[in-house]
């Protein structure tokens, strides 16, 4: 399956406030795409538009090259930001019900529910009313609810918020499984370290505009000034006086510095070797947090 989920020029306003401005990006099949942005940047609105829960004022969402239909969306798996299931129904019953609403027949829904509840570790609590489960287990039930119909595309709004570490591992494993089976997976998070660890591709949104999109490595390459770390045998204080260098951090023999865009790092290395032994010299990859600060400021 090589199908791609695409947003093209999506606009959306609530009253006078435009919350999405010409939003375009792609979620490639088989890849985990992290969707990051500050609170109120437009992540949830974008995801609701993908799922058809909200309509776009302009623009289009397409899947495999054609505009999304309700039939397509029924094969999507969606975990909304605000969680909730029926408190007075058993987990098994409502997961199966959601499976049926997504088009499974009764027998298939029952089979899928049993398998998923076991997978997320709720097999034995399946016949308990949802309201009697612990919060962590309710989150697991929510995951089962999003996956019961074996969705072709996954759209998850903050899937890791409020999860205990064990549940995070379960969700990560399940999402990776879906991605490697060829499904595009879009997930939002404001925990940048989690996104950094998980995503293949990244979409950064700020104030309703896409600020950056691409693979994690591409973004690293293109969104930062060249930064290097140098460790020498003696004191590295002299680096501060080297032409073109902006000092970031200095700690005895260790120094981190930036060069202007396109600047050549070799003269600095040469100067260090001229002064004595060099223990380490390497480019420093910016963290996602740094990229995020840079593109959203």
């Amino acid at each position: 399956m090589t199908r791609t989920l695409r947003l093209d020029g999506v606009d959306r306003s609530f009253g006078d406030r435009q919350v999405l401005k010409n939003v375009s990006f792609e979620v490639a099949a088989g890849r985990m795409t992290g969707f990051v942005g500050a609170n109120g940047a437009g992540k949830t609105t974008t995801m609701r538009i993908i799922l058809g829960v909200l309509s776009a004022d302009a623009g289009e969402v397409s899947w495999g090259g054609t505009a999304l239909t309700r039939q397509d969306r029924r094969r999507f798996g969606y975990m909304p930001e605000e969680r909730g299931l029926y408190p007075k129904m058993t987990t098994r019953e409502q997961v199966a019900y959601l499976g049926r609403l997504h088009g499974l027949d009764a027998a298939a829904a029952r089979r899928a529910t049993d398998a998923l509840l076991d997978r997320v570790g709720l097999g034995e609590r399946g016949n308990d009313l949802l309201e009697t489960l612990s919060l962590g287990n309710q989150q697991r039930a929510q995951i089962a609810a999003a996956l019961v119909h074996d969705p072709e595309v996954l759209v998850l709004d903050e899937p890791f918020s409020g999860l205990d570490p064990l549940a995070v591992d379960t969700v990560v494993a399940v999402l990776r499984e879906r991605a490697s089976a060829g499904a595009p997976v879009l997930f939002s998070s404001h925990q940048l370290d989690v996104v950094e660890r998980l995503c293949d591709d990244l979409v950064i949104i700020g104030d309703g505009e896409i600020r950056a999109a691409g693979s994690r490595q591409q973004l690293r390459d293109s969104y930062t000034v060249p930064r290097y770390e140098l460790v020498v045998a003696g004191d590295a204080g002299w680096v501060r006086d080297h032409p073109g260098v902006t000092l970031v951090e200095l700690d005895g023999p260790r120094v981190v510095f930036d060069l202007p865009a396109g600047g050549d790092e070799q003269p600095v290395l040469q100067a260090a070797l001229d002064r004595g032994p060099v223990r380490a010299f390497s480019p420093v990859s910016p963290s996602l947090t740094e990229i995020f600060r840079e593109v959203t400021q």
Partner: protein
Amino acid sequence: MNVTQATRLVAEREIRVKLRDRTFLFGTLFFLLIAAAGTILPPLFAGSPDTVAVTQEAAGPLRDAGLDVRVVADDRAAEQAVRDGDVDAAVVAGPKVLAMDDSPTDVVQALSTSPPVQLLDPDAVNPVVAFLVPFVFAFVFFITSQTFGVQIAQSVIEEKQTRIVEILVAAVPVRALLAGKVVAGAILAFAQIALIAVVAVIGLQIGDSGGLLTLLAPAIGWFVPFFLLGFVLLAAMWAAAGALANRQEDIAAVSTPVQLAVMLPFFAVIFLNDNDTAMRVLSYVPFSSPTAMPLRLFTGNAAGWEPIVSLVILLVAAGAFLLAGARVYEGSLLRTNGRTSLLTAWRERETIG
């Protein structure tokens, strides 16, 4: 999967959940007991025929009149039997009727000759029944649309409050959610009434009031379609009201217009049921026609075409309210920050399809 299948799934869930709800089950049981008690007990309390003490010669005509006759030796023994409370009355020479403190009508009638009576309007209804039947119709419609209406609104709010609505809306069209709830409510309400009706009919047979049944049958026959359409009309309003609220606590505030739409026709039919002009008007107004029209048919005041016209008006109104209700429902279902105003809900059509 199309809207019809989605509607069916939604309705199935609503019914399944309701059938496990203890309050609902006990409520139904309570109504069944009332129906049984109300039909079986009154004839029992009506009591046995009067007992009358009389000498052998005079016993014949009283026996023929169905009275409980005690033959005594003479008039003195008859009088003593009355004084002792063994019998309700005695007939002594004269003939004269003896009783303690209450003139025994049945005994007097048995001894009198009545002039022949010719009824010019033989269908005219016993005034007690004429008073009770409107009350029962209005009450059944009122109670049922009220209880099931509130339940529809509660179910809408539950989905909003727990936020599951977002998953539902992503999977099925909003109008399937609305339709499923209305259908489930109608089925449950109708089943409950049918069950009560069956018990009442059996009760009437046991209590030997079968004649009333023949009299009521046509009115009940018309009550069914009127009830169903009237219920759909109100159910659409209840669902929309529920969607405007955000928490169960808000339900009273948002449902005031719906409450009035149920309450006012109820009292109008109860209090104006002997006013011909008022009833004629009420029998065409969609909110009161479900009770007023079957009533006019029962009292024989409506021409054959009238219920059909009224039913068509109700059908159109129910359709219009369903569409309007669906629009308000769509416009407010995803607004989970506090109560939504009717106007905002009407303007905002959020979801696609």
